């Protein structure tokens, strides 16, 4: 079912409560009464088309972006992706780390070695995760915003064209590595291969968080790959074209 602008905001939360995380990234607070999505977005200064793209792709992994609705700003996308990164770094990863620490605190001589392996795997993963996000935050996003600025203002096109030749969004797309696979492995190792632990609820907590993070990350990466990249690619092309014409 597709979510559309005339639906009450409260309804979409009832349909899929994981969207709570998503609306928070738009700084939408609870208490929206019977206001529709469009009304809430207007009140908050949010591009409603962009909002719909994000909630729909989150709600339905097979949702295909509607070309007509894609005229929103790159700045909006980047802001959303940044908020998401922040949520991973400040909430999700520390939370999972905490649960894994609890697991270690509850170990016994029989499973300590195995639990330490899980911990090591997680710490390595966290490092990889930080590096991945750091690159996007500190290189890719600033590049993307520069491209958009040059595209919209028609200024500094020459300088940006030089940058495009050096590092284009396709280079990013090529080296954009998959950080969901290791999460998938961690889940399966805990589900299938970890020796029994005393407090099974810690494992359930870890798994619940891993499932949620995996779903969120899949969606996040899809927005980077299928929304951000094509838009930047089109702008790069336009900038290079306009330089040639001059």
């Amino acid at each position, binding site marked *: 079912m597709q979510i559309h602008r005339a639906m009450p905001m409260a309804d979409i939360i009832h349909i899929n409560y994981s969207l709570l995380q998503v609306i928070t990234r738009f700084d939408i607070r609870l208490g929206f009464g019977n206001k529709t999505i469009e009304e809430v977005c207007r009140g908050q200064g949010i591009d409603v088309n962009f909002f719909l793209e994000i909630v729909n792709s989150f709600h339905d992994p097979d949702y295909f972006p509607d070309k007509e609705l894609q005229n929103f700003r790159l700045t909006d996308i980047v802001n959303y992706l940044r908020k998401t990164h922040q949520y991973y770094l400040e909430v999700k990863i520390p939370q999972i780390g905490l649960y894994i620490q609890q697991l270690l605190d509850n170990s016994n001589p029989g499973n300590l070695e195995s639990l330490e*392996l899980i911990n090591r795997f997680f710490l390595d993963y966290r490092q990889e995760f930080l590096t991945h996000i750091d690159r996007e935050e500190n290189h890719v996003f600033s590049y993307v915003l520069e491209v958009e600025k040059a595209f919209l203002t028609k200024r500094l096109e020459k300088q940006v064209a030089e940058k495009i030749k050096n590092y284009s969004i396709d280079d990013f797309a090529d080296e954009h590595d998959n950080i969901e696979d290791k999460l998938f492995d961690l889940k399966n190792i805990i589900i299938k291969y970890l020796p029994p632990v005393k407090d099974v609820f810690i494992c359930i907590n870890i798994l619940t968080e891993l499932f949620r993070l995996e779903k969120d990350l899949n969606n996040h990466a899809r927005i980077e790959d299928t929304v951000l990249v094509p838009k930047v690619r089109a702008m790069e092309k336009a900038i290079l074209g306009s330089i040639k014409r001059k």
Partner: protein
Amino acid sequence: MKDIFIIENSFLIRSALQKLISEHFVSFQIHEMISLKAFFANKGKRNNCIIVINECLLTEKDEIELAKFKEINVVKISCEKAAQMNDLKTIFIDEEPVTIIKKLNNLLDNFQKVRKSGNEVRILSRREEDILKYVALGLTNREIADKLFLSAHTVITHRKNISSKLGIKTIAGFTVYALLNKIILPSDIGLN
């Protein structure tokens, strides 16, 4: 193990047990018999099973005979009253159904645990385990192929199978699996 033998000469007790057990252990095949003779005559199905037998039908000699089979679990039926007898391996004639089922369940649990430690179900074949070991140690497909005298293509096929069997996609994941299952040792990859 899929067989439960009810060996009891009283028709009433036997059919009541049959009904109770068939309702609670749907995946088991239940055989009703009136003496152990019929059990010994039943060739082929005698390993890995549960025998529920009236203690009057079980001599000491029979017990020695039964001990020769692999993984047979015996539960006795006693016509005495259960009062104060906390015997998990005996069903008493005046016990409630829930107690009887609890005893059988408990027996099955223990039974499965013993089996697991003795003969762990293998997920990977010998060859797949060899390949997994080298993957976990960080060798490339080419290097593994050379070591095991296989083509690189075969190694790749094996890796795909290993990945789908284990539900693990990354090399780091394979390494953890290999360590957990002692296919490699921490010292092999410079840990500890």
